[in-house]
């Protein structure tokens, strides 16, 4: 349910990136959402679509990259993907394991273009 707050933050970050690069329009944005981020990709996409109107991202296509949970185990040295609902190492079941990735919640990149067609 907090995806609306996240979409708001996303639009702020997109607007900042556009401003930094002097772009008038952002036509694409790539977002990484980790399995442990507590963000539901579909809800984020919906909130973004509703909230982007009237901003620099009004025509922005959102690409959400879902990043799986990857853990590493100090007990047996195993490193690999794990189901976020399962505690412990997928190989030796030892707990706890450290999280290598899966917590991400970030704007990876934006696709910008100038609004004007230019004479060449």
């Amino acid at each position: 349910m907090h995806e609306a707050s996240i979409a708001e933050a996303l639009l702020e970050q997109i607007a900042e990136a556009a401003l930094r690069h002097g772009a008038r329009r952002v036509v694409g944005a790539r977002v990484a959402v980790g399995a442990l981020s507590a963000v539901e990709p579909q809800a984020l996409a919906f909130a973004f679509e509703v909230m982007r109107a009237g901003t620099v991202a009004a025509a922005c296509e959102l690409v959400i990259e879902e990043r799986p949970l990857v853990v590493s185990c100090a007990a047996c040295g195993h490193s690999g993907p794990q189901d976020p609902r399962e505690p412990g190492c997928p190989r030796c079941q030892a707990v706890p394991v450290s999280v290598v990735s899966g917590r991400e919640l970030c704007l990876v990149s934006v696709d910008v273009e100038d609004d004007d067609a230019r004479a060449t």
Partner: protein
Amino acid sequence: MLELHDAEEIPVGADLLATNAKAALHNREHFLGHGVYVLNLMSGPGAGKTTLLERTLDALAPRYRLAVIEGDVQTRHDADRIARHGVPVHQINTGGACHLDARLVHQALDHFELGALDALIIENVGNLVCPAEFDLGEHDKVMVLSVTEGHDKPQKYPVMFHAARALLLNKMDLLPHVDFDVAYAERAARALNLDLEIFRVSARSGEGLDAWYRWLEARIGKAQRHLDH
């Protein structure tokens, strides 16, 4: 001739919680500057946060200067309950949002004189998902899970259990009536969070609360010693 330029991809790498993190840092500076210990109390709806808080206020108010921020989607019911315990309280209504954020807490701080407080307890909106994502600038996140909710909650809502410093298993007086496997829940929570302090309590009967009060007093004391140095 006219030519439409292709879109250019620009790497950004911005944390989407950065705006909140910045506001939380600002709150943290306030809290540290005044030596006030701040606790963010989180749980699903109906786990017993407010009852626990009422008990805790009665136990600690004789020795500590306490205040409370109440977060709810709407109503002042919880703030009215807290006010009966003679403690300064401010209600935040999020108007639909499922969590408190650092900016809302910062606005609420205007209602308190932080320098005159030992501890501020923030009761977050009842929700097992969203509050964990939003740092408020607090010292500790403390979670309440009641035995009526089911022992697989740590696995279903790992983010919150991972973020908490302490977990209160509440409504232990109801344990004979429910199928809650205490050992399973504790193991699942510790698998996510090795250093998690766990207290088995009943906010209604008072069972197990003394250990929780002692832990809280130690945390308040630690925050104040930091100010002295």
